[in-house]
């Protein structure tokens, strides 16, 4: 209760609400993702108390994920990848003149999904943290490798490209002073490189600048006032749909939370899986894709619930559940916090504050989201290229503001170009950023483990939990080729 009261302090609530407005703005612009919104927020949180920064990040992530559904519903263009599934039925309802019903229902279900996701986080993470206390360097090494591998395995392109992206990311993380021996690696005598490659400029470049580059090249004119503000919707009608579909909301939110908790899988995957699950369990599956209310409810409940779920591995193990929590981990380290099971003992009050912020954000989401729906009729008249120019300069000035370092601005530009090229040749970006974040943790645990064992690797497989983690890792890479082999053998017979 004390934690709940504390989050209403002015130095927390004002930036938190402003960040939620920013999330609505960024999430609703097609091509700009929730990850990008979070990436833009982080430099601003540098000078704040940790919970104010985390509240901004949590708030902006929930509003931007919801806001992605606004252009998805009205224009058939997903605002963020997590809104891909929202175009199916939301837009069909818009075509029938029920766009406002669809988006308002979407908003209410987003908030409910968010609440369920946070509740799962509250009840599951302390239990898992107790279990994680048994982990040693061996388990943390495998857990880090597993977290990285998941991001490669689930990437939409080939696993090989995912592995390349991981290796590049982890290699980048080795630049700077080696914390075990104090030797400067790949610094070439330059003091700016001794401190290593900053995670924040890398992330802003990869997810912010590169996306702007891509959007500018593939730009179609979206500065059209397609939405009319004349739409009206009866609140009772929305709540009637919510009441009749409570089971579906809970089901989709649980699906979303579980998928969100898997390292590497985020709100976008959660939304599609929840849509598929809802269709399978529906009494009227034939209506999906033609303007089904269930088709609106399922993905939007799941994508917001996935955000809560993705915090489970981040808080408990220090392994990000998705790109947003990858940034959260970097931000927490920046605030001097150490995510992991001990955070539940050492920073219990902060953890309770995070849970409280997550729940209260859903109430704010309802109000700010509703204003956002109205505001978009105005925002869509803005030339999109002005928005891009604004994002580019905010990316550069934001990264400069962190350490007053022009080198960080060069990094933003360099990673922006790298991110653009990588996407062009279909090398996924997420494993690279995860590599930069998890690289130091993996290296430290591997090297400390090797020192403990006099350089022998076998003890890394000698404990039940570490061996289980290794088996899961092997299964991740071998499952597909093995099943393909079995299928080929069967076909030949």
């Amino acid at each position, binding site marked *: 209760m004390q934690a709940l009261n504390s989050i209403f302090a002015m130095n927390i609530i004002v930036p938190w609400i402003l960040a939620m407005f920013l999330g609505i703005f960024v999430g609703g612009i097609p091509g700009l993702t929730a990850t990008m919104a979070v990436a833009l927020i982080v430099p601003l949180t540098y000078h704040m108390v940790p919970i104010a920064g985390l509240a901004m990040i949590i708030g902006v992530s929930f509003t931007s994920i919801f806001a992605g559904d606004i252009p998805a519903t009205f224009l058939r263009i997903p605002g963020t990848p997590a809104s891909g599934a929202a175009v199916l039925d939301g837009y069909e309802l818009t075509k029938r003149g029920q766009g406002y019903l669809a988006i308002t229902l979407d908003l209410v279900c987003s908030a409910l999904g968010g609440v369920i996701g946070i509740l799962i986080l509250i009840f599951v993470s302390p239990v898992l943290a107790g279990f994680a206390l048994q982990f040693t360097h061996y388990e943390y090494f495998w857990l880090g490798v597993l977290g990285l591998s998941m991001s490669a395995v689930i990437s939409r392109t080939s696993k090989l490209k995912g592995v390349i992206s991981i290796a590049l990311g982890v290699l980048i993380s080795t630049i700077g002073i080696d914390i075990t021996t104090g030797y400067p690696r790949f610094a070439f005598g330059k003091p700016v490189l001794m401190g290593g490659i900053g995670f924040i400029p890398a992330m802003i470049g990869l997810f912010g600048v590169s996306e702007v580059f891509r959007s*500018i090249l593939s730009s179609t004119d979206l500065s059209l006032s397609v939405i009319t503000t004349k739409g009206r919707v009866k609140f009772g009608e929305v709540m009637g749909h919510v009441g009749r579909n409570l089971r579906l909301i809970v089901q989709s939110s649980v699906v979303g939370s579980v998928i969100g908790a898997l390292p590497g899988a985020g709100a976008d995957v959660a939304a599609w899986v929840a849509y598929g699950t809802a269709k399978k369990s529906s009494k009227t599956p034939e209506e999906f894709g033609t303007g089904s209310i269930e088709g609106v409810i399922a993905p939007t409940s799941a994508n917001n619930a996935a955000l809560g779920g993705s915090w489970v591995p981040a808080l408990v193990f220090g392994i990000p559940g998705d790109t947003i929590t990858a940034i959260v981990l970097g931000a927490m380290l920046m605030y001097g916090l150490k995510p992991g099971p001990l955070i539940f003992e050492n920073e219990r009050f902060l953890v309770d504050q995070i849970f409280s912020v997550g729940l209260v954000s859903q109430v704010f989401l309802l109000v700010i989201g509703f204003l956002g729906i109205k505001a978009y009729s105005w925002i869509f008249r803005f030339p999109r290229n002005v928005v891009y120019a604004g994002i580019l300069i905010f990316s550069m000035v934001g990264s400069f503001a962190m350490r007053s370092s022009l080198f960080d601005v060069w990094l933003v530009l360099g990673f922006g170009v790298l991110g653009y090229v990588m996407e062009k040749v279909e090398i996924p970006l997420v494993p690279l950023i995860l590599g930069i974040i998890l690289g130091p943790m993996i*290296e430290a645990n591997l090297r400390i483990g090797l020192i403990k064992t006099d350089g022998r690797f076998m003890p890394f497989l000698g404990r039940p939990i570490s061996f289980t983690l290794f088996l899961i890792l092997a299964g991740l890479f071998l499952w597909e080729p093995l099943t393909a082999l079995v299928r080929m053998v069967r076909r030949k017979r």
Partner: protein
Amino acid sequence: MQIRINREHVIGIVCIGIGTLVLILTRNFPTGQGYVKLTGPAFFPNVLSIILILAGIAEVVNGIILRTSLSPVAVLGIGEQLKTPGTQTLLIIIALMVLYVLFMKPIGFFPTSFLFLFLLMWRLKVRWWKSALFSIVLLGVLYGVFVRLFYVNLPAGLLG
């Protein structure tokens, strides 16, 4: 004769190149005795560079096997690609960003930011007066957020 290579070849060769470069650079890193060798500063980057080289070789092989199903990149035709309006716009934006970072300190944050925003929007086909107006508005927002709210010292340059 036009040399035709595909995307996978390029990725593979770049990976092998980076991996080899890392192996060469880590040769000068200090090493210890016995098992300490394993845990020295070169150990982890070397493991990664070997993974990168192996992945690069696999990618090159992939390119050879899948050659027919992938769209080839004509190396000698790269000049034509650079001539497309989209690529030219992108290159100009990158050049503007480079100039912005280079001149931010000597000229000052506000004049360079105004010029950067104005030229960028103008290039992106926003009308000149709108470009100027939005540039001023954005500068106001940047000033409010970074200077007034977070007390960040932005380079004053000529105005300092």
